[in-house]
């Protein structure tokens, strides 16, 4: 049957079987493959998307049920291609991931937590991510990432609704703050006399 869903702010249409999950629809019909299938029975959280801002299991929901809600997938979080949100950047800063398979669900869950709670305690964070299983990290650097993101969000002067889209202005788009900023590589200019050599 025909459905139209609001995904990442855009109206998307598809023709799906009523039994098709939201997860499969996002992945197959809208090619939003950042949402992952881990268990498909509601335990692991790899399929987490935000439905009206709340983390939800897209494997447990039929696409036809999602009509009328605002759906946010991981693809909707980055402010621009190649730019990361504060939460995404914080996961990079603390290496809050390894294989990346649970990561979209984790990042969205953390994002939702920080929308509600400016200053989550460690227990708040542990509770918030406890429905998302990560097999790689043992959660330590994920908790650190959320703490780090919370701190940075608190320090920005933007109103809360605008923060999640705000990349930290001081941050270079690539390489992170530990990048040297300048490389020793100087491109050769092949067409100059003597091949660019002094």
């Amino acid at each position, binding site marked *: 049957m025909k459905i139209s869903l609001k995904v990442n702010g855009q109206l998307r249409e598809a023709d799906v079987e009523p039994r098709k999950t939201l997860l499969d629809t996002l992945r197959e019909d809208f090619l939003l493959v950042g*949402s992952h299938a881990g268990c498909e029975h509601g335990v692991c959280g790899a399929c987490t998307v935000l439905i009206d801002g709340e983390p939800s299991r897209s494997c447990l929901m039929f696409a036809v049920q999602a009509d009328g809600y605002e759906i946010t997938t991981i693809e909707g979080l980055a402010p621009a291609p190649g730019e990361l949100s504060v939460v995404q950047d914080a996961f990079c800063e603390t290496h809050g991931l390894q294989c*990346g398979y649970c990561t979209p669900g984790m990042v969205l869950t953390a994002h939702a937590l920080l929308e509600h709670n400016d200053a989550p305690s460690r227990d708040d964070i542990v509770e918030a991510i406890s429905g998302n299983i990560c097999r790689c990290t043992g959660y330590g650097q994920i908790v650190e990432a959320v703490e780090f993101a919370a701190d940075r969000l608190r320090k920005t002067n933007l109103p809360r609704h605008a923060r999640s889209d705000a990349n930290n202005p001081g941050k270079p788009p690539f390489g992170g703050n*530990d990048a040297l900023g300048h490389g020793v590589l100087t491109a050769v200019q092949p067409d100059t006399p003597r091949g660019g050599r002094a």
Partner: protein
Amino acid sequence: MSEAEIPLKFVSSNRRVREDRRFVAGQGHYVADVALEGLLHVAVLPSQHPAARIVSIDASEALRMPGVHYVLTGEELAKAAEPLMNGLNTPHVKRYPLAVGQVRYAGEWVVAVVAESRAQAEDGAEKVRVVYEPLPYVIDSEEALDLSSTPVHPAHGSNVLLDRTFVWGEVDKHFAESPRHLSFRVTWGRNSTVPIETFGVAAKWDPWREILDVWASIQMPKYSDQIARALRIPLNNVRVHQDVDVGGSYGVKRGIKQTVIVSHLARRLGRPVRLIEDRLDNMRAGDAHGPDRIFDVEVAFDNDGIVKSMKMRALDNAGAYAGRAPFQLGKPIGAIVGPYKIQSVKYRAISVTSNKAAQEAVRGFGQAPTNYAIETAIDKVAAALGLDRIEIRKRNFIRSEEFPYLIPSGTRYDSGDYHTVVAKVLAHADYEGLKRERDELRAQGLCAGIGIAACLEPSGGNSSFEPLLNDANKTTTWMESCRINVDGLGFVTVTIHTTSSGQGHETLAATVVGEVLEIDPDQIRVVRPDSLNSLPGNSPVGSRMAIMLGGAAFHAAKKLKAKIVRLAAHQFGCVESDIVYQGGATSYPGSSRKLTWAEHVNIAHRNFHLLPDGMEPGLEVTHVLQVPTANKLPENGRVQMYPCHSFEFHLVLVVFDPEIGKPKIRRYVIGHDCGTVINPHIVKGMTLGGIAHGIGASLLEEFVYDSEGQMLTQSFMDYLLPSSHEVPHVEIVHHCTPSPFTVFGQKGSGESGYLGSPAAISGAINDAVSPYGISFAKLPIRIAAISDAIAAAKATKEKVQS
């Protein structure tokens, strides 16, 4: 061999992991994301019986279902493909991707249904009618070992795949002269690493180019070789795409049977075909279960607690097929005495088949269970003598000045300083304070216990256990390679020749090459060519990549630098040793002349007339690295196993209510020494993740089979993975004892944490219940088991008292 310049600029610095960017944005490229035109989907039909003869298969109704294209049976596939490879010389234990004639475990795949969508394939599979005739089966390991048990493979004659006894040193003499002995049995339950991404594979056959393209969630040495052998096609017709991100593996992503199924179907149907396991397929029949092992241990020691000799019998349940499972009894031979100076060992390694799912390589390759057995022995010796468990470890440790240290089974440990690591941990954790805390908790009526584990992580991923356990196997290399190309505009591209499953190999290679060439690693691109464009390699197994890929990248970069220096010396008219290389530029002291990076590139790429005699144009180098220390076949049952040995020391405080029995880890401190760390973020993540995995193995995770041969823990509702609630904050205490055998002094860390945490947690729980006079001898120690055992102990006590 350590020739790194000091100080290091990028190695060991807290730089970001470059892979993370794509993953946090949901832009990983996993096998399920590979979009292929005309893709068909596979669903498999499992057997309900642990053992049965397949009488007939009727697919006619399935073939009439909408979208269904094909139903593949084991008979057809067996004609088209070779049986899968066995590690040992057991030719009659034949394994086909789909059951042929007989099923050997509940869940084993019988037919594969191909359809336009996975849902349609599943619908089709429901309509396949298979008639079975149930056969006798065996689940229990000891029963399987009994020669009167029903063989899983009648042609093999028994269930015994391997039964080998090694005696290293004067075991009988040492036992005879030791005043004290003790013996015990512990059992390591069958669990696995259970990545959140199941195994998946897609394949496409191009008949005009004669190329089989494969995309897979794979972590497997010699994967393409095995595909080619199974399908009887030349290896250069197989192209494995290694730029597929793998959603976790930790050893188990070895889906060769899945690959043979889709590859055959892709050729048969002329369309790309994929099989992505669902969780049930994966848990029940992904053939990815880990060791399932009973240890009988006997130690001989003196009144000071010095352990002189050990006898260990390890009986491992390989499941229905052989594969590489028996080798997981072989690798621990390389650290069979742990960090201790045990002078002699008798080791009997037994692997049996049973009607359980097939076993596969799991993080540590058998080492974590063995460490659990050794650490339990040390705890018991301490208890027998009334000595402190840390004191007894310190008395038995190899001392730092004794390295390289030759253990009885033939491996020379590279380096270590166990006493210092322990001292650092005790100081950090305040061991006396921790004991007081435990006693205060006990005074409140709670169960509280301290757990301790000291163990090694053999690293470097050599495969010496293959020739050790299989005389026909003469493998003495397990190489890894790296290529560096500096392009005509001066940019650097490094190639690595494997898939990764979260270990950060791109970051590793860039960091090392940047370090040697003194250029910013962030400017270096790292790519993964497909297998046809790859140099020899053995994939990230056995905690080897820091050592092997790091080493290969180091040597390749050194070669590149040497070429630049030679090229520069030719321009300056001086000898190479006079050239100063700095930050990509060269100079010649005594002259003001200098060549920049761009100038070297230009000469190499454009000015052949300026090159020294015999130098090839361009700036491209490769290096194929042999595993350090691996230079000969085993002799007399002794072999140098892995080159490097990281050390970890765990100290844990666990508390729980005696009525409820749900353990809470109140404090977790680990001292970790893996030599020079290349990227601290990555090593930290491995260690924390390994500990979490060990918490699962010791408290939660088990593939449980009932007496009917059915697996009871098939979903994440029954097979519990630790969540953020179960994993505590972990404090890591670092120490660095460089390895003399590697380029920066690095050792492996891919299995760190996991190798000792089950032993430590088990020790903590046993300490906590010791006031009741009970202990647990099997992992996992489940909540219910704890509360039941305490209740039983209390009841007995009351009875005795009344």
